[in-house]
């Protein structure tokens, strides 16, 4: 079972397909859950601990807006942990403020910097595209170690 980073991290479709084909999707929910289950945090993920900016500094320089560093404290460790990545290029749902936009750019950049298999796709808009989309993900994931057939 490989750990597959998904972008956008909140994608239902990617999360479902990755786990369906026998791998572990690394999405935003997992890092948010970790914060939710941490004692002493009343309003995660907005509230951060003194450790979080330090984590974020490993991925974004100190002059980068603090919002990006805060977000990278959630996504950065997952990118380091990932053994593969799937990126959706036309993910309008990842739209947000400038902090989100810059974090999204940085996440995609860091994924490409890592020497791991990356699959880039666009969302399907028809049945034919859906078939190609699912087949591409299935082929990509079955090439990773420990994948299973649906």
């Amino acid at each position: 079972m490989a750990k597959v980073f998904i972008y956008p991290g909140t994608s239902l479709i990617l999360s479902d397909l990755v786990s369906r084909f026998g791998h572990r999707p690394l999405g935003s929910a997992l890092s948010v859950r970790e914060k939710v289950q941490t004692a002493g945090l009343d309003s995660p993920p907005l509230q951060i601990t003194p450790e979080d900016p330090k984590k974020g500094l490993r991925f974004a320089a100190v002059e980068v807006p603090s919002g990006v560093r805060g977000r990278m404290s959630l996504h950065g460790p997952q990118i380091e942990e990932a053994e593969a990545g799937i990126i959706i290029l036309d993910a309008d749902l990842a739209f947000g403020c400038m902090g989100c936009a810059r974090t999204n750019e940085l996440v995609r950049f860091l994924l490409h910097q890592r020497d791991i298999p990356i699959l880039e796709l666009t969302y399907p808009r028809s049945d034919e595209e859906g078939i190609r989309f699912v087949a591409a993900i299935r082929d990509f994931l079955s090439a990773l170690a420990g994948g299973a057939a649906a």
Partner: protein
Amino acid sequence: MSEAAAADRVSARPGVQPGTATKYVFVDSPELTAADLALRGYEIAPGVQIKETCFGLMITGPEADVERLVDELRLLDPDRIFVKDRGFPPGDERRCRANLGGARPGFYGHENEMRLVRYISSGLRALRDPKKADLLRAKPRSPDEPLSVERLNTIIQES
């Protein structure tokens, strides 16, 4: 606040203890409703908290139990049931729209993707029909993609 007091505050909230997991189960099927899923869920795993929603279910409980339940529920309609993790447990006042007003954070993302899951269902169905999947994969990727010389040659030879 002392660490013990903080731990008490966290454990007072249901579903946030370490080791618990929450999953969304989305159903987009003409043959299966969220209520059917909830009934089946309670039959399979009585120790797990299940919240029925308009789109499907939210399931909270020990991670292994939730995984087992989700695997069983998927069998009801494998191509039209979609599952993803959730950070917060259902009803958590920090996320529940009953407390915040307006749409729940994350709703718009789900709304966006739920419009597309029917194409994913088609893709999953086609995986069991390799002929159709191969045929469609062989087609040009998009109408804007230029026709390759090899493909043009093939078309000329076939006609």
